[in-house]
């Protein structure tokens, strides 16, 4: 019994030290991690809404979005969209003008199969934007759908559909709720 207590104590002490070390590391890296995420979102916002000069973060129920303004004028919305693909969540940000016409889509994070689903976010050599996402430009976000507006990627129909369906679903929900 005595031995058991001793073992427990030693293990407990090691766990305690480990937790302390990790807590310190976490506190040190946290600002940096948050900063990285903010930068990522900011650069995505600039890409999909090049004419806007300021973005205000807002939330509407569960939807996170940014109001894109040029000077004081509201030029559109950038909405965070999450789709469920093959390997897990696909997090995107979709830029739309006030009537819901898509200005641009950026994928922030995805876990699709490399070589198949990952093509949703792959850029052809010499081009600036992923060729799959480029198709969304100028389409109405609320009704966008595979086949009609968007050509699915060969071998990755499900990932393509996940992206498209998530955009149309979130956009519909968003425009139903947002104040005009």
């Amino acid at each position, binding site marked *: 019994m005595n031995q058991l207590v001793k073992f427990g104590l030693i293990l407990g002490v090691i766990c305690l030290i480990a937790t302390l070390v990790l807590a310190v590391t976490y506190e040190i*890296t946290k600002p940096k991690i948050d900063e990285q995420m903010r930068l990522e979102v900011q650069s995505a916002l600039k890409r999909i809404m090049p004419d806007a000069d300021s973005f205000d973060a807002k939330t509407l129920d569960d939807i996170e979005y940014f109001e894109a303004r040029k000077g004081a004028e509201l030029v559109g919305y950038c909405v965070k969209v999450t789709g469920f693909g093959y390997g897990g969540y696909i997090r995107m940000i979709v830029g739309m003008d006030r009537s819901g016409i898509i200005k641009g889509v950026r994928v922030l994070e995805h876990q699709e199969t490399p070589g198949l689903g990952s093509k949703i976010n792959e850029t052809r050599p010499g081009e600036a934007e992923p060729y799959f996402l480029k198709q969304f430009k100028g389409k109405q976000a609320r009704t966008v759908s595979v086949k009609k507006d968007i050509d699915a990627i060969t071998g990755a129909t499900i990932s393509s559909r996940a992206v498209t369906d998530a955009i149309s679903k979130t956009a519909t929900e968003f425009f139903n709720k947002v104040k005009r």
Partner: protein
Amino acid sequence: MRGSLSELIKGLWRENPTFRMMLGLCPTLAVSTSVANGLGMGLAATFVLAGSSAMVSTVRGVIPEKVRIPCFIVIIATFVTITELLMKAYTPLLSRALGIYVPLIVVNCIVLGRAEAFASKKGVISSTIDAIGMGLGFTWALCFISAIREILGNGTILGLQISDRFEPPLFMILAPGALLTIGLLIGLINYLASKQKA
């Protein structure tokens, strides 16, 4: 000095964790879709290996025999989490690309294997050197496999296109390609080893 040099290089070939001992294969196959990923994973694992081996060796006198494995696991998990946080902070893209395989370094048999077989018995310096050697052995093996898969499966190396003359077989970058590559490579190495002996 010569002793520590041989400890460093044994991991590179003679006791290479991937090709000779077949340890830590799960991450090897999973992340070897591109050289950049392979290199990142290899270096992350090397960091964990070196850190945890040094730590295990430092505390080896204090830890009773019976609870050593849980203690080692805690130490390894700590280093893995540090790596996870650092990667998220400084190399966010790589951390995304490697996904769940970063936390899974904890269960990489190479790390626990080195802690148990080497670091728990030897001094801090030689344990660290041994761990770095093993880590580098793992890293080059990963890069080698990734290079084969990236060249054949995607037609690129480190993201640069090699030639647009051929349509790369997608198969190589998907799961079956990984299994085939490792199977044939280990077969080839066995063959070379048997030749050497004869």
